[in-house]
């Protein structure tokens, strides 16, 4: 029973990663994965509001991003809904929502003893971007 519960929990904790896997080879999407943050990313993070709240005791274990470049409204809406469902299933907490004209940036995070995951969900007219940054507790 406990094993089954643990299995289900593990499955549900990976919905967002599954979404990346599902669409990474879809021609309507662009996908990038980086194993660990490089010095350029750390430099870029200096001006990045999203990382301001990151505890310095966490170290980056990688980041990935997928973007949908399509003006097809129904596709955008269904993909956005899938992202929302995955975030909900993975138990991400909403951190902020910023609306800027027709653009919208939502940030989410999930903390556990295994580390910290941060998600940026960017909705622009004509494109949707989802980025996932993962961090492990530092030594």
């Amino acid at each position: 029973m406990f094993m089954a519960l643990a299995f289900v929990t593990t499955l549900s904790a990976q919905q967002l990663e599954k979404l990346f896997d599902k669409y990474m080879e879809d021609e309507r999407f662009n996908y990038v994965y980086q194993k660990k943050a490089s010095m350029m990313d750390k430099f870029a993070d200096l001006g990045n509001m999203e990382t301001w709240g990151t505890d310095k005791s966490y170290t980056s274990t990688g980041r990935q991003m997928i973007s949908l470049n399509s003006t097809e409204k129904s596709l955008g809406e269904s993909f956005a809904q899938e992202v929302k469902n995955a975030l909900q299933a993975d138990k991400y907490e909403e951190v902020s929502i910023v609306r800027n004209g027709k653009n919208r940036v939502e940030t989410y995070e999930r903390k556990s003893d295994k580390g910290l995951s941060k998600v940026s969900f960017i909705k622009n007219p004509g494109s949707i971007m989802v980025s996932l940054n993962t961090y492990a507790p530092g030594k």
Partner: protein
Amino acid sequence: MDNIDNILNNYFEGKALPEEENRLREYFRNNTVLPQHEVYKPMFAAFDKEKQIVSPTFIIPVEMNNQRMFSFRRLWISAASIAAIILLVVMFFPFNKNNSSAGDYLVFINGRAVKNPEKAQEYADQMFTQADEIIRTSYKPLVEANAIQTKMDASKIFDDLAHTIDHIESLNQ
């Protein structure tokens, strides 16, 4: 002006409609702002700086598009970029063995894998930078509003005043 007060109340409760927000922006942009509303003017001035973010355009990798134009300008820009990157490596992380190499990237553009590791790194950096820029631009008005809020903090103003008075008194003595 009761109406403006009502809209302001809705705005601060997060219930204002987009039309009402536009009306507030128009009101605070004009020089007819009532004295009781002057306190909100800097905040709306900051929000007014909001810009429409242009959706990023991702370029198909060069290896998939063989019509590349080679020019002296492009060579110069590439050389300058490489020099800047080397400088940053030396300045910030001279002995860090954990820096990413080109093999640490996995990139798919329009569903097609970018197999050249250097190109993959280039396009990954481009995409991450564009996303970071959108986030930074979106949060800019919020950061400015926070700065205004800190500046207008009553306890800080009183503390500063108390320090000034202390300073004047010490000079008089």
